[in-house]
């Protein structure tokens, strides 16, 4: 930590928040709001003279309110920067008449009540998002009595209690009587792995944290009786199983099943846990002196702001979404942005450090090259044709299109951010968008050639470059045979398949059209294929209205590994094709 404070190339901006990000990969313009510290960071030597005179006492946030601090304080002893900070809301008045004791006490004169918040601006080439997580607040789980019963605490509060730098200097006590608790219970999965309350995911760290905490207690106070109530113990990392075994060998009792209720003995302030004994099928009571709720991790409350500033996305759990869950796990969908630590998902310290180094290395690759070539396959908006409807900006998974609702100016593509999926071009109803290398003309001419002779014998297949086209390749490599009626047209993403391509194919006499792309989870353009599906659904309605069987337009998600599925679907297409009569085709050609 202190290395950061000392490093000549690290500018540390504390009490600061990013308020604006402009630009794109390689050239981000950042605006940061630096809140006033009211103490000169460079001059303050953390001598503590001011502390002694400050008359205000407040709960200490760092100790989660288990201890107190003054209005002017050092967040914690090893803080970097080590300078004190004055909390103006706690201070009796930024008016020396009201108090002003600390300024007087400070020999170096580094306290300035009139210090102002400052906006700082700079340019960077890359961004690393390491915004971390918050800890789940178990108050809503009323049955565990957190905040109702004083001796029910969270695992993070426990960390402060048992920390040698903490409020009790590392002595284990329970809150009501400051005595060593003789019997302690841990309850696992608080706020995790529940579909009903809290979060459905596993928070990754809580099992091992409890195993560690149980050993911390046993190492110092072997007489303390410890019961751990759990669903499963997940000890899958290097050295984890050993630690778990050590904990069991030290006498920690691991009991499967989460207690359904906790009651408090109003006098002794002891807690009675009701849990079901699965073997006996009856309810058992466990009386303990203190309960520690092993709370899970939740996305940082600032995530939505960062998400907006950097145009990121989130997965269903609320954590940030990677560019690809397996192949680009530290890259953000926005080029030049990377993830480190719990911002992306709950993880322990080792994994956080590993990911941080990976993110730094990914950023390093870009910066050491000093330049990057950007995708030639990008979209282009014709200002003359654009009606400023804004649809394109809404569908773009990368927020690569700038569009100002108020100003009603033509939309603009930020080429360095565009990944070239073509969803915008397919959605623009005014034909204002040209997809480079996959233009309407190019695709239409392929359709026309495919259906030039005997269209009734052909099946037109749109296949996305990454998955379904590659799935077709895999069928080939595996020599899986299918009928030769299909004519494949490649697009980068199924999201490129414009309504008019499909209708044009039917107009030219195609009996069957198949639109195929990646499975939702594999979409190489984050979510562009959601628009494919919506468009196909709309087309089904449209065809039906015109009296054309919607069955003639087919949809399929085929991955690059699904050669078998590709061949199977092609056979099915041929079967469907045989069912389409000449009359039907002629009718369609007339109607559309």
């Amino acid at each position, binding site marked *: 930590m202190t290395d950061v404070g000392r490093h000549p190339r690290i500018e540390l901006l504390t009490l600061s928040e990013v308020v604006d990000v402009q630009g794109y990969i390689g050239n981000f313009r950042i605006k940061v709001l630096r809140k006033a510290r009211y103490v000169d960071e460079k001059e303050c030597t953390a001598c503590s003279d001011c502390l002694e005179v400050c008359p205000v006492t407040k709960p200490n946030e760092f100790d989660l309110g288990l201890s107190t601090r003054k209005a002017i304080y050092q967040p914690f002893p090893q803080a970097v920067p080590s300078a004190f900070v004055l909390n103006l809301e706690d201070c009796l008045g930024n008016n020396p008449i009201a108090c002003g004791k600390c300024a007087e006490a400070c020999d170096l004169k580094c306290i300035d009540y009139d210090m102002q918040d400052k906006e700082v601006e700079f340019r960077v080439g890359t961004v690393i998002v390491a915004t971390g997580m918050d800890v789940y607040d178990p108050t809503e789980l009323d049955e565990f009595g957190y905040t109702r019963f004083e001796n029910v605490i969270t695992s993070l509060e426990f960390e402060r209690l048992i920390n040698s730098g903490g409020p009790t200097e590392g002595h284990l006590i329970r809150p009501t009587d400051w005595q060593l608790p003789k019997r302690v219970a841990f309850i696992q999965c608080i706020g995790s792995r529940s579909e009903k309350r809290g979060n459905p995911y596993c928070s990754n760290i809580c099992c091992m944290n409890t195993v560690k905490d149980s050993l911390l207690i046993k190492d110092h106070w072997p007489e303390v009786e410890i019961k751990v109530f759990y669903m499963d113990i997940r000890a899958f990392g290097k050295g984890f199983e050993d630690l778990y075994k050590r904990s069991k060998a030290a006498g920690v009792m691991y009991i499967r099943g989460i207690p359904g209720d906790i009651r408090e003995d109003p006098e002794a302030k002891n807690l009675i846990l009701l849990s079901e004994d699965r073997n006996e099928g009856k309810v058992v009571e466990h009386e303990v002196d203190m309960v520690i709720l092993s709370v899970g991790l939740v996305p940082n409350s600032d995530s939505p702001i960062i998400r907006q500033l950097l145009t990121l996305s989130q997965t269903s759990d609320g954590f940030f979404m990677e560019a690809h869950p397996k192949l680009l796990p530290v890259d953000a969908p926005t080029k030049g942005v990377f993830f480190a630590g719990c911002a992306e998902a709950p993880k322990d310290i080792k994994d956080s450090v590993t990911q941080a180094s990976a993110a730094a290395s990914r950023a390093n690759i870009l910066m050491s090259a000093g330049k990057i070539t950007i995708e030639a396959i990008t979209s282009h908006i014709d200002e003359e044709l654009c009606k400023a409807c804004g649809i394109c900006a809404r569908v773009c998974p990368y927020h690569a299109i700038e569009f100002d609702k108020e100003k009603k100016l033509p939309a603009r593509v930020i080429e360095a951010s565009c990944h070239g999926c073509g969803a915008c071009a397919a959605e623009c109803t005014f034909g204002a968008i040209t997809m480079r290398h996959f233009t309407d003309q190019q695709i239409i001419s392929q359709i026309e050639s495919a259906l030039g002779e005997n269209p009734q014998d052909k099946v037109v297949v749109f296949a996305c470059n990454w998955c379904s086209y590659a799935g077709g390749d895999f069928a080939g490599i595996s020599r899986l045979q299918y009928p030769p009626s299909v004519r494949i047209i490649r697009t980068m993403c199924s999201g490129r398949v414009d309504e008019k391509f499909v209708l044009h194919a039917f107009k030219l006499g195609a009996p069957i059209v198949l639109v195929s792309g990646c499975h*939702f*989870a594999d979409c190489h353009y984050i979510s562009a294929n959601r628009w494919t*599906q919506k468009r196909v*659904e709309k087309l*089904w309605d449209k065809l039906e209205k015109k009296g054309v069987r919607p069955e003639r337009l*087919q*949809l399929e998600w085929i991955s690059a590994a699904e050669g078998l599925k590709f061949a199977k*679907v092609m056979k099915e297409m041929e079967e469907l094709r045989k069912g389409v009569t000449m009359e039907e085709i002629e009718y369609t050609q007339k109607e559309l």
Partner: protein
Amino acid sequence: MAEEADFKCLRCGHRFKAPYSPKDEPQERACPQCGSNSVRRIKEKAKGK
């Protein structure tokens, strides 16, 4: 209770019910009978006919 809707497979013709709410994010659907993704939601008014 979760909302449901009627679906029809445009490949094999199978009809089935599946959880659906207009508020949902679009999701990948497959026919429980033939596995096809050509699954169409049958809207209310079409059902009455």
